[in-house]
């Protein structure tokens, strides 16, 4: 089911109504069924894939827990079963075509006539998200950070809980399951807060992201050769804004929908476009993925033992024990290449990941220089350098081929490419206005809040007008015209 639809709103009203009407365990059964219905509204048959993943981890984690710690080999083998099944599913549905296609290219290059059969398979919605959740669950049990859940109802609900099922935030079992097991009592603030978050999310999706989308499509459909450097910068910023509105919209709605039932799921965004470094950017952007990558890839690859499990904080946290420089850098590049591939089975995503790794690597290497020159530690200065670089990274993320990415990105280094424009003036104008508003909003958010606290009448009036405008716009634009971008990952 897609959030930006009438069906979802009706579904949510029914589910929330039932949730607060039903007693303890019946609530959970209802939520499990509702989550299956939510997923089944896309394709029923793909529910089985999700349950294969969930059941595998349910049983292996119990088996790991019941195996004495000294029997390391059995525990490790059980963990491998989980990894093989989950990563196998992910490989089959997401990467098989990519792998065979590249293998065939390689076979052609070495002059072999043999070709592997190419099979195009429909990617099940949310597979990248729920497999990461199930893997993290078993790994946490293996690490001794979590006791496995005996009730399949509770565990099944952790995997399928509909608000975060298709595009995150990627939840940790240790954070969600206790909430599911505890009986929550109705509070008006759940309803009020949840509705606000859903409204914000729908506004970002149906009013902003969906209306930017045709402009981005138009720009990226142009021949890369015909674009100017200003066009490339504009498209980078515009797509950066589109994906931010789109993805943060999903997270707002997910957080809001869960909140309606008194359940807290982690925040995924925290004004990423005011980050003053790439490291900070990844503490503000897709925080739950960064945290996952940190705990299950980056730290283990760096040789650091993970001591806690949380979907918050983003990448770069928990580095109290510093690994060796070589380990850190190796882990950095490997992690980011995998992070890129996680987003999609295309070399453009790998390039995107490696681009981030290179910039973070350079940030680290430049630290001694930055420490000696105060200007480099000026927040505005650092932001002004970080933002264009971060936005430019969206070019390979959105471009169809590596060739297109290189052609477009090379334009920004050619002075003569700055002498003309290739798109309608409105696109530059819209991009500039939106970026300015997003930045100002982030800058003013906390400051206005502090001022408003002292002036309750003004604050309430402002809130009423703001919410009324949001309601009108969401009502006018609500239609499932496009999926959320992260559904394809």
């Amino acid at each position, binding site marked *: 089911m897609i959030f930006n639809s009438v069906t979802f709103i009706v579904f949510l009203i029914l589910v929330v109504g039932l949730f607060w009407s039903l007693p303890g365990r019946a609530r959970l059964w209802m939520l499990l069924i509702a989550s299956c219905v939510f997923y089944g509204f896309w394709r029923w048959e793909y529910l089985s894939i999700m349950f294969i993943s969930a059941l595998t981890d349910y049983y292996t984690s119990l088996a790991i827990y019941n195996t004495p710690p000294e029997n390391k080999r059995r525990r490790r083998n059980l963990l491998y079963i989980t990894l093989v099944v989950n990563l196998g599913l992910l490989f089959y549905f997401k990467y098989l075509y990519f792998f065979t296609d590249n293998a065939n290219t390689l076979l052609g290059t070495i002059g072999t006539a043999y070709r592997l059969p190419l099979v195009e398979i429909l990617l099940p919605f949310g597979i990248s998200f729920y497999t990461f959740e199930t893997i993290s669950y078993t790994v946490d049990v293996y690490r001794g950070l979590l006791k496995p859940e005996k009730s399949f109802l509770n565990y099944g609900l952790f995997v399928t809980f509909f608000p975060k099922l298709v595009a995150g935030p990627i939840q940790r079992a240790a954070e969600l399951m206790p909430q599911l097991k505890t009986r929550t009592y109705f509070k008006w603030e759940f309803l009020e807060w949840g509705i606000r978050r859903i409204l914000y999310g729908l506004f970002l999706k149906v009013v902003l992201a969906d209306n930017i989308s045709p402009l981005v499509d138009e720009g990226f459909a142009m021949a890369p050769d*015909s674009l100017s450097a200003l066009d490339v910068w504009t498209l980078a910023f515009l797509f950066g804004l589109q994906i931010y509105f789109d993805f943060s919209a999903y997270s707002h709605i997910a957080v809001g929908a869960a909140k309606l039932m008194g359940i807290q799921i982690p925040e995924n965004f925290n004004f990423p476009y005011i980050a003053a470094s790439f490291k900070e950017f990844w503490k503000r952007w897709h925080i739950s993925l960064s945290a996952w990558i940190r705990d299950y890839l980056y730290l283990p690859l760096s040789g650091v033992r993970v001591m806690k499990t949380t979907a918050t904080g983003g990448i770069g946290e928990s580095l109290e024990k510093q690994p060796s420089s070589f380990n850190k850098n190796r882990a950095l590049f490997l992690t980011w290449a995998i992070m890129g591939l996680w987003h999609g089975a295309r070399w453009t995503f790998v390039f995107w990941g490696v681009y981030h790794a290179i910039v973070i690597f350079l940030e680290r290497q430049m630290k001694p220089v930055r420490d000696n020159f105060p200007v480099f530690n000026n927040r505005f200065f650092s932001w002004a350098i970080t933002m264009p670089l971060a936005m430019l990274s969206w070019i390979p993320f959105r471009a169809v081929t590596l060739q297109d990415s290189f052609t477009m990105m090379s334009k920004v280094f050619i002075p003569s490419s700055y002498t003309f424009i*290739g798109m309608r003036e*409105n696109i530059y104008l819209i991009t500039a206005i939106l970026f300015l508003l997003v930045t100002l909003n982030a800058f003013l958010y906390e400051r206005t809040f502090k001022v408003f606290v002292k002036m309750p009448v003004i604050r*309430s009036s402002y809130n009423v007008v703001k919410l*009324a405008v949001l309601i009108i716009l969401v009502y006018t*634009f609500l239609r499932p*015209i496009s999926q959320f971008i992260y559904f394809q990952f």
Partner: protein
Amino acid sequence: MRFLPAIELAVAFILSLFLLKMFFSEKVVFEDLALGEETTRFLAKDSANRPMHIVEMNGEEQALLKTWSESGKDSVVLVLGNSQTHSINQIKPKDEIYVSSLGKHYESRGYKVFCHSIPNASLQEFLVMFEYWKHQLPVKLLLLPVFMDDLREDGLRDVFFNGLIAKQFRIGDSTAPIAKKLNGELSKFHASTASGETATDEDMKALHETVQENVERKMNDWLDAHFFAWAYRPTVRGELFNGLYNFRNTLFGIDASTKRKMIPARMETNLRALEQILASASSSGVKAIVYIPPIRHDVPLPYDENEYISFKEAVRSRVGAQHAAFADLDTLVPGQYWGMKNSTNASGKKELDYMHFQYAGHKLLSDALVPLIDSQLKQ
């Protein structure tokens, strides 16, 4: 105070209902807004009052073919154009457009004049239109205006090509990159209409082939049928965008006289389409006359002077390279034969209309075109 946030939300809901009622009260026809009060759409008809001029292709093209078969299956002079062709400023009784005059003039000489004009038509759209008519009618001569304004456009707009899309029309010579590009766009349009997509389906693209699609459609249909305010949402969306357009113009002081820049990449794509039209005409034995259409010169041009000169030069050289006829008629219609258009910003002041002239302008244009056409038909 505990319930204040909930009260805020409730008040916001009530306020939004009140505002929605205000917004959803008046129907606006956007086509009328685009042409303005002084300008009237006019489609040419032949002496027997049969259609010889179309804008949309939602079956109207069949009427043109019928006219042709009923009127003796003469050779055809095909006129392509934009809203200048199908509009008269300050229309009076018995006024007509230049296409009507040409039609009468050539009817007696054994030629049928047919016209297809669409607002803001780019040369890419002209290419598709020409390729279609070339295969439907015995086109002897093509009359093609090239507007600088329309070279800022790119691609095809499906609303004007529904008839072609339904027939799976494609440009025959698909080797040229421009033909490939346009055929790709036609295929894309066809793919969405072949599945029987309606405007509602277009709004539900994300649900295509999902279980949710049927449920969403039923709910939407029910809401459409029972709540005017729901069915009226597309109009409100249009009003909002129109409001933004006016707001932008007000903020930046933009009106019809504001100088607009050429977009080099789009201009080049359109000029390639022009080359393709002329090459296709030549290979089919169709004579072509390309002309720079009239624009008002009693006031400064809404373009950079140098860009305008190089635009004309670029068209002239491309036409020359294809050995087609070229005419520069941009100063043909004097200032008094033009008019004004509705305001495009919050000032409410009428603005200069650079595109649509009065009947006298149409008369001058047809008088100027006749000798050009004659010379080509004689060859």
